[in-house]
Structure formats: C-alpha cells, structure tokens
C-alpha cells in the first residue's frame, strides 16, 4: 500500500483515536499529534527537521495557550496508545502495520523531545532572569546605603539645629 493510501486508512481512525465525540466541535486534545502523523505518512519522505518544525509550532501554541507540559505529553501518549490498539485491529497487512507503528512512534517521541527542548529553554530564561534580579539586588543595596547615610546626616544636622 502506498504511503498516501496508508494515510487515508489512518485518517479513518481519527474519531476513534481522538475520541472526537467527547469534544464536540472543538479540536480534541492530541489532534496536532494525529495531524502530524498523517502528514508524516502522506509525504512519506518528510524529513525529520520538517516533522520537528511542525510539532514545534503545535506544542509552542499549546503551551502559549496555557496547557502544561505534562498535559501535552499525556495527550501525545494517549493518541499513541490508542493508535497502537486501533492499528492492530485495522490493518491486516503486517507491512502496513509496521509503517504506521514506526511513524506513530516517531511522532510521539518527537513531541517529547520538543517539550524537553522547550523546558530546557525555559530554564535558561529563568536562569538569566535570576542573574538580572541578583544584579539589581546589588544596585538596590547601594541605593539603600546611600539613603541611610543621607538620613543619618539629616538627623544629625537637625539635632545640631535644635541645640
């Protein structure tokens, strides 16, 4: 079976794998993972960087809209697990089944990789922000010292005047 036909066969499983009935007209969780899988199967020769970019965009969008990393990973895993079960039942030709299993695994682990990358980048940003905060501590302390000196001088001068 050609890869494009395989993608069509997998597309039929969409409702079952994503449990779309539960989510009405909204995109069910993990839809981006399923779409990436279809794309990988359709294009066949989709390069790893291409898949990486697609999922990077999708994951970044979900994180930007407030989903946690754990939620993104859990959805990817749910899609992967359901697809394993559905593929076992839906494909009779072992060769087709193997292609789908390999593609699904690649997509699922790419999601994990992208999430890990995003987390590491976030840690880098936090580290830089902390350094900036610590530098501002130093400046604020210097300002505070100067203020204390000014206050002491004023208090002293006031005492002199009262005398």
């Amino acid at each position: 079976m050609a890869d494009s036909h395989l993608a069509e066969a997998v597309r039929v499983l969409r409702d079952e794998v994503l449990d779309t009935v539960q989510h009405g007209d909204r995109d069910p969780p993990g839809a981006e993972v399923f779409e990436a899988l279809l794309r990988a199967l359709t294009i066949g020769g989709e390069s790893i960087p291409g898949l990486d970019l697609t999922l990077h965009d999708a994951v970044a969008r979900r994180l930007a809209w407030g989903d946690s990393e754990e939620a993104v990973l859990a959805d990817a895993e749910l899609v992967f697990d359901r697809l394993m079960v559905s593929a076992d039942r839906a494909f009779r030709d072992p060769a087709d089944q193997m292609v789908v299993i390999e593609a699904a695994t690649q997509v699922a682990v790419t999601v994990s990789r992208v999430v890990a990358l995003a987390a590491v980048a976030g840690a880098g940003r936090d580290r830089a922000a902390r350094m900036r905060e610590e530098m501002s501590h130093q400046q604020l302390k210097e300002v505070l010292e100067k203020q204390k000196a000014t206050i002491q001088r004023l208090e002293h001068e006031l005492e002199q005047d009262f005398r």
Partner: protein
Amino acid sequence: MTQQASPIRIAGDTHVGKVRTMNEDALILEPRLGLYAVLDGMGGANAGDVASQLARDAIRDFVLHRRAELAPKALLEAALVAGSTAVFTAAQQHRERHGMGTTAVVCLIVDPKHVVIAHVGDSRAYLLREGRLQTLTRDHTIVEDLVERGLLAPEEAERHPYKNVLSRNLGARAEARVDLLELELRPGDRLLLCSDGLYGYASAEAIQYLLGSGDAPEHVTRDLIEIALRGGGGDNVSALVIEAPAAAPSSTQVVRTSGAVAWWQHRQRFLQVASDGGLTKNPIVRGLAPQEAIELVALSLCQAIYHDLEKSTGVNVWTFAQNLAAGWFERGGDWKAVRGIVDILGGAARAVVDDIRARDAKLGFLLDVAVSRALIVVELALGGLLAERLRQIDSDLIELHGAALDTVEHDTLETAPPIEGSIERPGERPADRPGERPAERPSERSIDRFIDRPTIPFLRPDRPVTSSGESSEVLGAIAKAITIARGRLSPRAELVAQILVALETVATDSGGNFAAAVLAARELYGVRSVDNAGVMPLFDALDKARVVATSSVHQVRTSPAIRVRVLRALCIAHQRLVAAATGLVLEAVVPFGERLREVQVVTGELREAVARAEQRRADLERKFATIVDPSLPWGARGSTEW
C-alpha cells in the same frame, strides 16, 4: 554528455583528517566531461597518494579521449580498467610502491536526468531521494562478500577483524572488476560520493540530515566533512555532492527568496505607512523621538517579518510581539495601546503587500498569505501573554481564597470551647494535638508538585500493558533484534548501547506498571546539566537507538506477524522511555523557576525598603526646611541629594 551549461549543481572537497599527516584521497571534478569521482589510495611508503592520483589522471584522460567512441557504461568501465592498469604498472616499476592501490567511485553525467556510476573498493555512492537516503554501492570487502554468500551473519560483520580489508581495488591487478549502475535522476535528487573517512566517522542519520538540508552543495560538502572531523576524523575525508535540477519552485521557496527580498525592498513604505497611521503617538512609544520610535518598533517588526519569510518560520515575529507587549504590561500599560500599535503595524504590512501585488499579482498573493501568517503569529503571542496574565490572576485569587478559608478555620478553632479528655472536638485536627503528625491543610493538599510525586505523572495507571502475555517466541525475537542492533553500533556509541539494553528490559518487563521505564530513564539520565549540551545528547542517542532497533526488527528471521509484535513492543517501550526521560527533564527545570521566584521576592523587599527610606528622607527634609534659618541660603547647609 553533460556540458558546462548543465543546471546540475556540484561541489566536492577533501580533508586530511585529524590523525593522518598525508591526504591519500583524490577527487575528479570535470564539469566539461560530466565526470566526478572520489578515490581513496592505500599502500605503504607514501604510495597511497600516488596510487589515487595515478588512477585519477588515467581515468580522466581515458574519458577525455575516448568519450566519442564508447557508450557511457562501457566508457566508464574501460576508464576504471585503465586506471587500474596505470597503478599496477607503476607499482611494478617501483619496488617500494609494490602493493599500492586505490578505491574509486565514479559518476558520469550522461544528461541532466541520466547518470552512470562505477565503483571498485569501499568508497560509496549514496542517493537522497524525497528525504530518504539509500546506499547505491556495495562495499568490496572480504566481510561483505562473506555476508553476501551467507557465510557470515550481518550482525557479525561489524565486529569482524577483516571488515576493512578490500576484496577489490584498482592497482592490485592490471585488470579490474568494476560494478556499474545506471540511474535516472529525478528533480531534487542528490548524489553523494564519499570515501570511508566520511561514513566511518559520521552516522547515516547525520549524512541524511545534512544532505537533505536544502543547503547549497558546497555548504553540504563542508558540513559533511566537518561532522566526520567531529566524529574523530581518523581517516582522510572526501565528499562530493551532485544535485539534480530542482522542480519548479514551491510556493514556500518563492516566498523564502523573491518574497523576502521584495518585502525588504519595500521597508521604507512600511515605515512611512506606520508613521502616517499614528505609531509615533501611541502611548507605548511615549518619550521617544518620532524617528527613534519608528526604528525601534516598526523597523524591528519589518526585520522580524523579513527573517521569518526567509526561514519560513514565525519565531522572530513571535519574539518581537512578546517582548513589545510583555515590556508594556510590566510597566503597568493597558491592552488598548498594544491593540492600537499592532493594528497600525498590521495596516502597514497590508499596504506593502498591496503594493507588491500591484506589480506582481502572483508574488503578491503568496506574500499576502505569508504576511497574514506572520500577523496571526503576533496575535497568538499576544494571546499567550494575556492567557499568562489570566492564569496569574486566577492563582492570586485561589491563594487569597485559601488564605481566607484558613483565617475562618483558625478563628473557629480559637473560639471553640475547650473539652477535657481524649474525646476529639468537632473541627479539631490531629495535628493540633501534641505528638501527632500534622495533617495537611486543604491548600497544602492541593499542592501536588511534579517533583514530589513518586513517578512520572503522565504515565497513566490504566495504560495498556505491552509485554504481559507475550509468547516466548516474541520475547526471543525481541532479544534477537536488540542483539542485531547492538552489533550494528560502533564501539564509541556507548550511550546508544545502554539505551538498547534498557529498551529490551522495558519491552520484556512482565510487570506492566512501567516502573522499569522510569528506572531505566533515571539510570540513563544520570547527572546532566540542564541545558542543550547536557540534555540533547540523551535525546539524540534515544533517537538513534530507535532507528537502529526498529530497522533491526526487519532483519530478524521470523514470521511477519511476530515481527509486527516485536516492533510494537519495542516502539511502545521506546515511547515510555522517552516520556520518562522528558519527565526527568521537567523535574530538573523546576528548581530554576523556584529560585527565580525566591530572588524576585527579595527584590520586592529591597524595593520596599528603598521606598520606606526615601519616605523617611523626604520627611526629614521637610522638617529640616521648617526649622532652618530663612536668612541662610539653602545651599549653605549642603546638599541633601543622594
């Protein structure tokens, strides 16, 4: 035969490597003949380079003089035989050069769609077609011959002591047995001719990645050599890339090239429309000179869009929008100003696209789509920030609500009448009694941090069990696949080998609770720095292990049904392992956020202290001013400025 005007792009280069002192490789780059080759010389007493150069010259001369007489395939075969004869004759004439020889992989471009490849020895030709890499040549080594005859298993070949010993070369005999291959090139195909110094020190995945990168052949050649050098560079490295003419450019390519350039050429128009739209009057740029405001905001977005068009990405525009809005919100700015400035910039972008469309309708249409996409990215970035603010407000409300509940609870306890004896009072918590472990408060119970949990939270308990109930046949096949995979690894790939062992453990784990995946991931993770250099090698190795393991499944001699089950078990095990490793990364990054919040609290306290001191200073100065002698000038008391 290919002429100079051929649209085929070619680049080749060679490097001595990091260990050898002399480069024994040689290249042929003859566009007028359509002749390209990589030769890898061998033999003692400085004869390796002599052999490769002799063969190179002989092959080139033969093709030059006989190309009109012979058909391409026959021409190439005869040219390689001529090369072998030249080397053999020279070796006979000079005793110290006895035994010298060379490999050769030669490509003759008959026309832009038709090539002939000839090879002898272990230099290779690869074809990258539609993103997939395939080896076109079979190494002429003793071990490969044994494998082909079925006398040696493929997994044993990699470890065989004679794996580098050639069974054929040019120069061992006057004659040479040449392997020939005719190939129809398709648009965008890329051919790679290389010596063993490349594929011996760079993984097939890396070669595939670089060859498929879309970069110009000269850049690909340079990067391929660089990656082999990084892999050790233990031999001379040569690479020659031949790229077939690409099909008509896709919309993306048009936007990346012509679209990006057209956009940049219209930047003055963009700035003008933004200025006319009232950008300089927006509250966000208040205090800046008009020209400065235009450059800081409009030109920055113009540049961001240009770079994003060039790379077909949205990262620059995203960063621009986030920085602009986050900075404004941090200063206490309102949403209306952000909306206003984004609308002005969006209007300017559309005006530019309209201008371009008036001159070139097709390019204008494509650019319209791409620029609209960039503007959507801006909206998404702003949406992300707003969502972040909303989350912050939510968490503040939850905190306040929790604090209010605690206060009510505390007041209730304070006012409850004391009851003697051990009878538990209504509302009393065990923690309130001495000697007992404090119970969690409701707000504490809700704090369920990732790092406090015993295992990876998204590993659900109701997940299907992979290997429970698998037959011994499947388990045996899993072990075989892993053995084959380990045999294919180079001795340097220790981490990948460890991962393969972990994969087998997880895939054959009968527990089904995936504790094995978490334990294995913890062991593989070890101690790592939380940055790309620390974390990415693990994920790279996991990826490589997956590729090696899944491709090894196809080599296991068993029924297709069993093979599917083996692949399924290994893939699920791999997914669990990667998920667990990702969980560990998420666990490792938590302290960074916590430490940042801690120092932010200290910053807040310091700012408050400064504000209090400032208040005190102002009070003192006012007091001072009321008692000071009015006849004295203020300056005589000295400055109170700090």
